[in-house]
């Protein structure tokens, strides 16, 4: 193909990614987005202006070489593009799906000034899928063994990316995971219809092939403490245990049957496969024909409400105390949820849950809100409207107002400094904690954030761990 001019590139419309139609997908757990075809990918890649100064990269927390990988896509060298991305991002199939691209790389893209930005995330996803389905995930070579042992606590994106980088540098790496499967929120939280588990499993297999050892069923703090791991000969430890403590609202009636935390609801469905009961043993509330409300406005809330719809809910609502513009969920998820028939009740807050004699949830008392002055987060603070209370009939409720940090490590390792909110305090450049030889990153440091930030933290820590292992006197 002859080289396109800038003008010609700008004329190409942003390519639409095929997806399952809403009617069909709201009753199955298969992935909603179907991904670009090769033709669509090349076409979309041709929209990139190959800027001399690619500003898009500034928006990516791990600095993926966006311009260069997109060039390779436009040339049809998809495997080359995959290798290019993986210089900076070890989980592209995951990030291409779940990164909030519209706020990160794509928001910076120059083509977005006048028209629509290049679909960087979709291209990243395409490239990673192409590699996985055509050659299998190809991994980097492993450096000469250094004889050093590193323990990684928690197998979410932070732990996995840290493990990948360290094993490539020749260190022996063991990942300890509390649950029976590897992947953290990618496995137990984010549903199959957004991130097929098969993709996470393939990434984990690739790490196994590099020599990373995985030990499931190991709750650090209970099975072994951090100090005991040190005693077992690990030269350094990375803690990536995530933010896994569900917040409740502390309103009356929260313990009625049918009131779930998002973590419990999603874990039952995703990790334990309750949607396939009785083939799988774990049950979950029977949503069929029922009224379900999910309280919250983030990705977790969208995942929970769309899951309830797929389990057969007649009416599935998002109830959020601010307005739609303040919702932290990704735009794409909100859009998909609406297409699937989710109803959004904005500026509304629950005051209490109502139940029956047998302890089953029957409804919620809600109160309308209006937006007042901006609060500390810069978003306008919701203020209750007196006298606006009303009752909503409900059979199931899911509370998705965020997670705090699990205190297990804090309680069992007092010499790792935590802040008031229970997050581990680290040196921002090295991810070092207050305890010699122990590093931390991901949600346990930042509070609930994003997959890519957790991965970035894992990589940064890997670099610092490598230096520390070469010369422990640098602590």
């Amino acid at each position, binding site marked *: 193909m002859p080289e396109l001019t800038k003008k010609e590139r700008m004329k190409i419309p942003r390519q639409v990614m095929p997806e399952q139609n809403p009617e069909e997908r709201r009753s199955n757990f298969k992935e909603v987005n179907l991904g670009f075809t090769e033709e669509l990918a090349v076409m979309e890649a041709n929209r990139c202006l190959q800027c001399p100064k690619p500003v898009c990269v500034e928006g990516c927390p791990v600095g993926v070489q966006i311009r260069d990988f997109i060039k390779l896509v436009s040339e049809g060298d998809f495997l080359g593009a995959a290798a290019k991305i993986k210089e900076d991002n070890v989980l592209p199939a995951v990030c291409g799906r779940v990164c909030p691209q519209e706020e990160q790389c794509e928001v910076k893209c120059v083509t977005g000034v006048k028209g629509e930005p290049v679909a960087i995330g979709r291209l990243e996803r395409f490239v990673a899928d192409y590699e996985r389905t055509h050659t299998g995930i190809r991994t980097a070579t492993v450096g000469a063994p250094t004889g050093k042992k590193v323990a990684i606590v928690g197998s979410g994106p932070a732990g996995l990316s840290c493990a990948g980088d360290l094993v490539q540098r020749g260190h022996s790496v063991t990942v300890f995971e*509390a*649950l*029976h499967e590897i992947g953290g929120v990618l496995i137990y939280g984010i549903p199959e219809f957004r991130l097929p588990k098969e993709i996470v499993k393939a990434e984990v297999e690739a790490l196994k092939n590099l020599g990373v050892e995985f030990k*499931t*069923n*190991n*709750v650090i703090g*209970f*099975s*072994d403490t951090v100090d005991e791991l040190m005693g077992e000969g690990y030269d350094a430890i990375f803690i990536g245990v995530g933010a*896994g*403590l*569900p917040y*409740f609202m*502390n309103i009356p009636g*929260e*313990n009625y*049957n*049918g009131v*779930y*935390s998002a*973590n*419990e609801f999603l*874990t*039952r469905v995703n990790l*334990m*496969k309750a949607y396939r*009961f*009785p*083939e*799988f*043993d*774990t*049950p979950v*509330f*029977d949503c069929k024909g029922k009224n379900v409300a999910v309280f919250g406005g983030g990705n977790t809330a969208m995942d929970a409400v769309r899951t309830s719809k797929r389990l057969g809910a007649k009416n599935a609502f998002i109830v959020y105390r601010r307005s739609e513009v303040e919702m932290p969920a990704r735009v794409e998820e909100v859009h998909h949820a609406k297409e699937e028939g989710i109803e959004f009740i904005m500026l509304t807050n629950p005051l209490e849950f109502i139940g029956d004699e*047998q*302890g089953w949830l029957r409804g919620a008392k809600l109160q309308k809100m209006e937006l007042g002055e901006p609060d500390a987060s810069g978003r306008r603070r919701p203020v209750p409207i007196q006298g606006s209370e009303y009752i909503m009939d409900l059979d199931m409720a899911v509370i998705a107002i965020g997670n705090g940090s*699990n*205190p*297990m490590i804090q309680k069992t390792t007092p010499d790792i400094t935590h802040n008031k909110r229970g997050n581990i305090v680290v040196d921002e450049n090295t991810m070092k904690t207050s305890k010699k030889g122990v590093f931390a990153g991901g949600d346990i440091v930042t509070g609930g954030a994003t997959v890519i930030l957790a991965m970035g933290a894992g990589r940064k820590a890997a670099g610092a761990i490598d230096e520390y292992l070469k010369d422990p006197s640098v602590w």
Partner: protein
Amino acid sequence: MYKIISADFLAPDIKRFIISAPKIARKRKAGQFVIVRTTEHGERIPLTIADSNSTEGTITIIVQGIGKSTKEINSFNSGDYFTDVVGPLGHPSHIENFGTAVSIGGGVGAAISFPTAVALKEAGNHTISIIGAKTKELVILEKEMRDVCDEVYVTTDDGSYGEHGFVTTKLKNLIDSGTKIDFILAIGPLPMMRAVAELTRPYGIKTVVSLNPVMVDGTGMCGGCRATVDNKTVFVCVDGPEFDAHLVDFDTLMKRNNTYRDFEKTALEHFSCHTHQMFDAAVKEQN
């Protein structure tokens, strides 16, 4: 995979398993539990560590077959494997020399209270054990308790063995006859634990119960195991499982434990139907 070293029935539907789990065996303390998963399709269910042997690297669990998962476990034999065993979870029992300590175990609760009874004895308490069961053949661990405790009483609901009545009947007798009791640990079905709590409340005897909500992860991540204690929400898996009986809201917990009742029936039917098919297939093969 966690290998079953031995498996034997203690009573109809109550089976004792010794499982190879060296790390758990080394670490566990009285009052802690494991979460097991029977197969790749299994649910995660909590079971108390009844005993352990750190030199052999084994732990003992005692399982009462009441639903799909526990019946499936009880169909396992030595040489079989659990897909997952994780622990030790939960806080260990709070043990000190209280003076006279009574451990009360209703049904399979006798197994759950056993390790704590041992620890209470080791701490220097005068230990009394009350074992309650519906009927004679369901009485478990009597011999083991006699080896450890200073006094052991057995009650059966139908009077077929030991004293006729409930564990609370015996406990009340002890209190009325002037036994000075400093500490009580009661473990069994929720109505039993509640009855003990109500009995001891007016006397102000320190009473502890081990709660048994439905659990999933057992690490404080899901909040499914929440209960109300002292008007506050607790996560039983990480804040317990033992709590001051006089502060527990038993009513709410009893209702919460009914959440999956219809599913449990379906699961059990599905399981029995499945085992029948396996049985039929095995018979066919033999013929």
